[in-house]
Structures are given as C-alpha cells and as structure tokens.
C-alpha cells in the first residue's frame, strides 16, 4: 500500500522525469534510465507499410525484445471485412506479413495470425489480402476462428463487469500477443484500435453490447488480453463510416507502434482527423477508462515520441 506522501513523491519524481526528458538528449537519457524506459513511449514511422513496420519495431528495441526464441506468438490484425486494401477496413497485408516475418526471425516457435471474423470461411481474409501475404511467410498461419471448439472459457479476474468469456485457445496458450489494428472510426466507440480490437479474440462479442457497458467490457477484456506490442497501421485511415466503410480514407502512410496499447491508441486518435475533426484521446470512452484502470497512458502531450521519416 502507498500512503499519500509516497504517492506524491512518486508523482513528483515522474513529473521531474518528464520535464527532464524534454530537455535531455535521448542518448544521455537512455543511459540514465532503466532498460525498459530506454525506448520511446510511442514511435511514428512514415514510409512504405512493410519498411515502416520493421523500422517501428526496431525503434522499440527490435522484435527480440518481445519475442524470445521458442515462444508462441499470436498476431491480431483486422481482417473481418470483405473489403480490399484501399477501403482501409482491414489491416494492410504488408504490415501483418512484416510482423509475422519479424517474429520468425526472432525465433518464435509458432506464429499465428488470428481473428474472429463476422462470417465463417476465408472470404474476408482473402479480400483483405492478408491470407495471401501470410501464406508467403508460413502455410496455414492465418486463420479465421469461428468454430466454438477452438475457444475456451476464461475468467477475467480484474473485470468490473464482464467476468469471463470464451477466448481463442491458441491465444490463451500464446506467450506473446501482438495487436496490429488498422486505424479507423467506429460509430459505437469513436475509434477502433488496439484496445477495442481485442474484441476479435472472443467468441461472444454480442454480450458486450447487450449485457454490459461496452467501454467497461472492452477494458475488462483488454486487462485479460493485453498485447505486449502494438503496431497500428495508419498507412490508410478509415476516418468516417467505420468500421466497415465505405468512408473517407486518409493516407498518412504511417505506422504507430508502442509497448503500451493505450498510448498507441491515444496517439493515433490525436494524430488524425476523424470525420474531418481533431479529436482528443479523452473523448474516447474506452481509452479514458483503460488509462484510469492502469492499462496505459493517454497523455499524449507528455509522451516520449520518436518520429522517423523513411
């Protein structure tokens, strides 16, 4: 337990650190701080999707920092929609393929690309281009999981409302979970990014709509399934009429990556115009809740951001 004094001390220290980090050059800072803090909070890389993805992971310490040899990895992209790459409803196939390749290079024993699409079969996987891109990395690694036998009930111990749901077994067995959402709007939750995207790993999404408060249930889920690496595909951004579209497609050509899913999402919210308007992370209900419940930060103005143009 912390008492108020300790809390204030910690706050003060953090403030001092943040203030310092804006003045002290990065190299000096990284030598001063511990290993985990030696990388930027969020990286934004502009370039072709595959190259930018590799560079973004590299700036966060390389895939080796997340995936140890022999580990099982699950990558969760958006591939639920029967829509092509230009529509921005699904993650760019090159981003997914680059991540899968990086995991392989880091020595992962298995890499799976999983999503629970709206309909069974491979139609949306094919339309998105992700199936073909993944086949070139490893046959059969990209799967749409709609069969209930591939799910297993899991308890969400820290949940406020949704105390359990069935989760894809391969996700429960994985050592590393990587979220690779596309940046897009969602008419229920404002945006759908890495935190909201975890809904694609459970069997019964509907219960999150009709029984629980959606935002609360999203955070309940993300507390159980927190990705250790988030790579948001903002090569194209579906800035209106999400999640399916068709809608306004922006083309920033960027990749936003972070170890902190809330920080990555918050940065994506702050970086682009949604329905032609500038929005703040605090205007996205589930991100506010996630930060309050300790899942990550939404204070984009205080983050250590590394921007790279390839």
């Amino acid at each position, binding site marked *: 337990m912390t008492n108020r004094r300790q809390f204030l001390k910690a706050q003060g220290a953090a403030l001092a650190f943040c203030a310092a980090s804006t003045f002290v050059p990065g190299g000096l800072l990284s030598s001063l701080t511990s290993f985990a803090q030696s990388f930027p909070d969020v990286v934004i890389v502009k370039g072709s999707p595959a190259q930018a993805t590799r560079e973004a992971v590299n700036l966060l310490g390389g895939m080796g920092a997340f995936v140890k040899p022999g580990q099982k990895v699950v990558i969760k992209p958006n591939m639920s929609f029967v829509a092509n790459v230009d529509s921005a409803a699904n993650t760019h196939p090159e981003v997914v393929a680059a991540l899968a390749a990086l995991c392989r290079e880091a020595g992962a024993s298995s890499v799976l690309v999983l999503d629970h699409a*709206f309909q069974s079969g491979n139609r949306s996987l094919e*339309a998105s281009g992700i199936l073909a891109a993944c086949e070139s990395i490893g046959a059969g690694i990209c799967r749409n999981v*709609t069969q209930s036998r591939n799910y297993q009930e899991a308890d969400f111990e820290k949940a406020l409302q949704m105390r359990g749901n069935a989760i894809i077994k391969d996700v429960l067995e994985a050592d590393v979970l990587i979220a690779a959402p596309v940046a897009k*709007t969602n008419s*229920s*939750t404002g945006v759908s990014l890495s935190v909201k995207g975890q809904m694609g790993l459970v069997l019964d999404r509907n219960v999150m709509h*009709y029984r629980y408060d959606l935002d609360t249930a999203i955070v309940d889920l993300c507390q159980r399934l927190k990705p250790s690496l988030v790579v948001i595909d903002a090569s194209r951004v579906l800035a209106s009429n999400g999640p399916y579209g*068709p809608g306004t497609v922006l083309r920033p050509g960027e990749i936003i990556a972070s170890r902190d899913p809330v920080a990555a999402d918050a940065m994506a919210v702050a970086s682009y115009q949604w*329905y032609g308007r500038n929005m703040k992370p605090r205007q996205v209900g589930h991100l506010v809740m996630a930060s309050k419940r300790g899942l990550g930060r939404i204070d984009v103005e205080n983050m250590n951001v590394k921007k790279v143009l390839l």
Partner: protein
Amino acid sequence: MPKITVPDGKRFVFLRRTTQTSSIALFFVLLFSANIHFFGLPKDIFLRLDPLAGTLLPVVSRSWLWVFWPAMLVMAATIICGRFFCGWLCPMGATLDAAGGLLRRFFPVRQRLSRFMHTSAYFLKYLVLAFMGCAAFCGVNLIFWGSPIALLTRFYGLFLAPALHAASNFLLAISEPLLREMDAGSILYALEEPHFFHTSAFVACFWGVLLILELIAPRFWCRYLCPAGALLGALSLFSQFRRGVLLPKCAHCGQCVKNCPTGIINPKNLSSPAQECIVCGSCLASCKFGAIVFSSASVSRTPTKESLLPSRRAFVTAGIGGVIVGMALPIVSAKASPQQYVRPPGTIPEDDFLAVCLRCGECMKVCPTGGLQPIGLESVFSGIFSPRLDPYSGGCLPECTACGNVCPSHAILPLVLAQKRYAKIGTAVIDRKECLAWGEDKRCMVCKENCPWNAVEVVPRPGYAVPVPEVRNEHCYGCGFCQKACPKTPAAIVVESTDALRLNSPDFEKAARAAGLRLQPASEISAQALPDQESPALPPGFLE
C-alpha cells in the same frame, strides 16, 4: 422389332448392380460437389430425371418445362423396356436396396404379410398418383410428398450430410489433445461447424418409417407407395421387353418367387404383372433351370391373371379426393398463412413459385451460409419445405449465385451475378423499442458493421443519448446479416419481404432501377465515389 433376349442372369444382375452403384455414386458427387457442373453434368440432373416431377410440374404450372426433358426420355424408354429406372437408375431404389439389405441382415424379421395383404396393397401407389395428378390439374403442387428424387435429395442434403458433418466435428473435438500433441492443431480450424436445417426431425422420422417398412417388405416404398413408380408402371403396361417363363423348363422350385424384391411373382403360375416388375433380373439369376427369360418376344409370356391395379371405383375416388384438396387448399392456405416469406434471390412470383418448387432442398444444401431453410410444418397448407431466407441461420452473400443455379425447376431463376445483385429479397426493419441504441441508450452498431450493402447508418439523433441505427431502404438488399448479428434475442432488426423483386424473367437490374433501388455492395464502393459528407458536430461514438 428385333428379338432381344437376356439369357445370362448373373451377368445381368452384375450389370444392374454396377449401374445402380454408379448411379448413386454420381448422385452423391453431384449433391456434395462444390461445383455446379460435374464433367458437363448439371448438378440437378437426377431431379430432372424424376418422371413424376417431369409430368406433373408442367401440369401444375400450366407451362411446358423443357428442363425436364430427361424425365421424358425415361418415360419413353419405359414404354419400351419397363420400369428399368426403378431397378437400375433410381438412387432412392439403390438406397433402399442397400439400407434394407443391411437392416434385414441385422434384424432378420420374418416377413409376416400374407400374400393377400401384399397383392392388395400394390394399387395404393396408383391412388397416390391419381390424387396428386388431380390436385395438379387444379393447380396445386403436392408432388414433393412423393417425388422420390426430391425426397432423397432432402434426406441426404438436409439431414444426413449435416449429421455426418456434426459427427466429424465431434470426432475432431475428442481428438483435440492428440492433435495438439502431434502439432497438427491446424486441422482443428479446417472443418467449419455444420449448418443444420429446420424440419430435420420430420425428415428423420419419415425415413425412419421407410426403413422400418423395409423390414416388412423389401422396397416397400417402391412397391406400394411411390407415385413415380406408379406412373412408370402405367407406362410399362405397354412395354415390349418383359419377363416371361418357359413353363416346360420350370421345376417349380420357387426360387424366383423368393428372390423377387418386389414380390410380384405369382407362386402358382409364376407370372408377373409387367407394371410391377423393376427389371432387376433377380429371378433370372436365381433360376437354375433357365426357365426365365427377359425378352422382347411375346411367345414366352405367361398370361397374368392378377392385375394388381386398383379398382376403377378406388381410382376415381382418389382422383376426386385430389380435386377436392386441389380446390380447397388455395382457400385454406390463403386464410391460414398470410405471411410473406423472404424467398431466395431471383425467386419467381409466389404463386408460380409454389407451383414449380420441387422442395428438393438443393438450394438450401448449396447455400454457403446455411441461411436458406425449409419452411416448417407450421405452413403445412402451402409453403411447406419450400426455401426461405432465415437470417438467424445465415445471410445471403452478395457475391453468391448458387441457389438459382442448382434449382432444377427454375423456381429460383439461374441468375448471373450482374443480375442477382439487383434481385432484392426484402428490407430490414428496426424495432426501435427493442434496439439497444434506440430503446436502451446502449452504444451498438453491430447491424451496421455487418451490413455488406452499406445500408445501415448509425447517426446522432436529437433526444437519444447514443448514435442510433437507421436503414436506408433503397440500399438494403434484405440479405439478413444484420438480423443474424444483432445482439438482441430475438433480433431488434429483422428482414421482411417488403419491396422484394419477384420476376419471371431475369432482368432484375432494370426492375431495380425502375423501383429506385440503389443496390451496391460496400466492397465495390470506392471511397472517392462517396459524396462529400458534412462533418458532424461530434463524430459518432466520441465523447464531448
């Protein structure tokens, strides 16, 4: 006419068995193959061979259905060589032969029916035919209750296939630990979950009864009940190629009587009525004395004493029964089921549809989402077993044209995609009291995110705490994915048959444009083509 005789019984039976086996094998291949054509053979060829459908569907629909020319061939051939179709080609006959043979081996029940019972039951099928025929003349389609190929297609496609699929899923589930141990976990993803069909219980019971009847008499259905058999039997009365007995050679051993699967050889004079003989050759193979011939020569025939045909009075009574039902049914059904069903895309207008739909279930079997379901016993007076879209089971895929292209009677038109995509089947309607967003202030856009037609908008409306869904009717196809996905049970958004396009010709694009519809799948709409949207004060889903 040249004299044709078949002397070698064993070879004859071997040839028949081979044909029967190939026939049912082909039936399975066509039913279960994903392709519409198999080496040039259309998927529905067996249904189009069905003589009952080929004769009575044109009568019901008052139109010449040229697609049933194979059935005409069968009937023409029957006039020459008897009910060979039943013994050689019919996959239902082959199924009953195989299943009945197995059943009789495992449950050797003594066949108790007296000869009197048997001989007095053969005429039943002619009454069934008279009944269905007269109803057909009154414009009522009862054919599907007796068309053997339709019954069989329904049984295999809508009951047995899902049952076997479920069984393989169960096997997969119990072998999961082993598969994961062997690092073959990917197999677990390979098999989708089966689509089950409504009325399965009824189909199972119906076939259960048929198989139990096989214990009472082999080919019970074909002997006593099958109206298609009755039709072919009537044509066989004129057949040239038929069974005969050379009495001087006959030792009266009774083997032929015992081995006849339809039980029609008279034990006294060994004659058999041509209309009941399925030309299977069992008697020929069982005769050690060479006393039986199948021949086009009339000299060898022994005259038949028993006709086994129904009495004129019974026949006329059955016919009148058919007329009464044929007159009454439209009146009763108009009162009983005013409900308009959501039919598959490209379905012809309802009255024409009910007249020609064979209820074979091909469209439902082929539907990739399992959304096409048979209408159940609740609609016993008219639409029973005919297809409707049940969105709770699955939606109608924008890029699929399967159902129309397998329909044997063109009750669903075979459309190309360019036309099918305009064949609107209904319109989604939101129940604002039940809807999570409209009625309970809960944020939900599941209908929108599942809509392949971009027909649902989720928009802020004054007086409502959250953005609410609205259906744009002219964009809505009625595909039903919204209803399937709606978190509420029952769904707060349901497809009704409102504004469905039902045409007799395949020009749906024109009709859709004339009706002011703007059907375009979301996947085809490019973002550049969108009209400029004014940005809302607060984008949907964001907080102030």
